[in-house]
C-alpha cells in the first residue's frame, strides 16, 4: 500500500513527459532569439544597402547594428546550451525542473525577440539618417545600447532561473 502511494507520488513529480518542457525551453530560447536577430539583421541590412549607395565610406560604421543583432542570437545560444546540459530522462528530471527550464527559455526568447526588433528598427533608421548627418553616429550607438540591454535583461533572468535548485 505504501509502495503504491510512494510510486504514485513519484509519478506525479517525475512523469514520463517531464523532459518535454525542458526541450521546449531550449527550443523557445534558441528560436525566439534567432527570430529577433534575423529581423534585426534583415531590417538593418536593408538600411545599410540603401545608404551604401549614397555614402560608401560609412558602411563599415553602419555594420554595428547588425553585430548587435547577432549578439542577441548568442544570448539565446548560451541559455539553450546551458539548459540542454541539464536535460535528462524523467527518472532524474522532475516536472518542476521542466517548468523552470521552459520559462528560462521563454524569458530570454521573448526578450531577445523584442530586443532584436528594436535593434533592427533603430539600426535601419539610424544608418539611413547617418548618411545625411554623420554626427548622428554617437546618438545611434547610444540608443542601440539601450535596445541591446533589453535582451541582456532576459539573459540575466534566464541564467538565474537555470541556477535555481529545484528537484
Amino acid at each position, binding site marked *: 500500500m505504501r509502495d503504491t502511494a510512494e510510486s504514485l507520488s513519484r509519478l506525479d513529480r517525475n*512523469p*514520463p*513527459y517531464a*523532459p*518535454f518542457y525542458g*526541450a*521546449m525551453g*531550449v*527550443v523557445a530560447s*534558441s*528560436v525566439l532569439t*534567432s*527570430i529577433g*536577430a*534575423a*529581423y534585426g*539583421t*534583415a*531590417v*538593418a*541590412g*536593408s538600411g*545599410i*544597402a*540603401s545608404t*551604401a*549607395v549614397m555614402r*560608401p565610406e560609412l*558602411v*563599415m560604421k553602419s*555594420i554595428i547594428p*547588425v*553585430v548587435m*543583432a*547577432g549578439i542577441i*542570437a*548568442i544570448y*539565446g*545560444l548560451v541559455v*539553450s*546550451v546551458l539548459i*540542454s546540459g541539464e*536535460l*535528462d*530522462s*524523467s*527518472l532524474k*528530471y522532475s516536472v518542476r525542473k521542466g517548468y523552470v527550464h521552459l520559462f528560462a527559455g521563454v524569458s530570454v526568447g521573448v526578450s531577445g525577440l523584442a530586443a532584436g526588433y528594436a535593434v533592427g528598427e533603430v539600426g535601419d533608421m539610424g544608418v539611413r539618417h547617418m548618411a545625411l548627418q554623420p554626427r548622428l553616429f554617437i546618438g545611434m550607438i547610444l540608443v542601440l545600447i539601450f535596445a541591446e540591454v533589453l535582451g541582456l535583461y532576459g539573459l540575466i533572468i534566464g541564467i538565474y532561473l537555470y541556477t535555481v535548485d529545484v528537484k
Partner: protein
Amino acid sequence: MAAQIRTVVTQTFLYLFLAVATILTLYFVMTGKGERVSVGWFLASSNPYMWACLGIGLSVSLSVVGAALGIHTTGTSIVGGGVKAPRIKTKNLISVIFCEAVAIYGLITAIVLSGQLEQFSMETALSTPAIQNTNWFSGYLIFGAGLAVGLVNLFCGIAVGIVGSGAALSDAANAALFVKILIVEIFGSAIGLFGLIVGIYMTSKSKMGDKE
C-alpha cells in the same frame, strides 16, 4: 484584392479553430470529464516515434522553406538589377549560395537525427520504467532539436535573402559595395549556424532502444 482575400481566409480559419477549441474544452469541463483535457496524458501516451519523426521532418522542411524564401527574394533582385547592370549576375550568386547553406544545415541535422532513431519494443518499455523514460525522453529531444533547427533556419533564410537582395541592388549601383554588404550576410548566416549547434548539442543525450 488578393491581400483582402488572404486576410479573410486567415481570420476565418483562426476564429473557427479558436471557437471549436473553446467549445470542445468547455464541453469536457462542464460535463465532468474535465480531467480528459490533459496535456500530460497526450504527451505521455503519444508515441516517441511520432515526436522523433516529426522533428526530423520539420528540421529539413522548415529549413528548405527558409532557404526558398531567401532565394526568392535574392533571385528576383539579382535578375531585376541585372537588366541595367548585367555584370552583377555572377558575383551575386554568392548570396544565393548563402541561402542554400541554410537548407544544408537543415539537411545535416535531419541526417544526424535520423541516425538516432532506434527500435525499441513496447513490452520492454512499458514494463521497465527506466527504459520507457529514456525512450520518451529521446523522442522529445529529437523533436525539440528538429523544431529548433527548422524554425531558426526558416527565419535565418528569410533574413539572408533580404540582405542579399540589398547587396545585389547596391552592387548594381556601385561595384565596390558588394563585398561590404556581404559582411552583413555573413552575420545573418551565423544565426543559422547557432541553430545547428543547439540542435546537435541537444541530441547528444538521446538514446533510444531496449537497453538502459
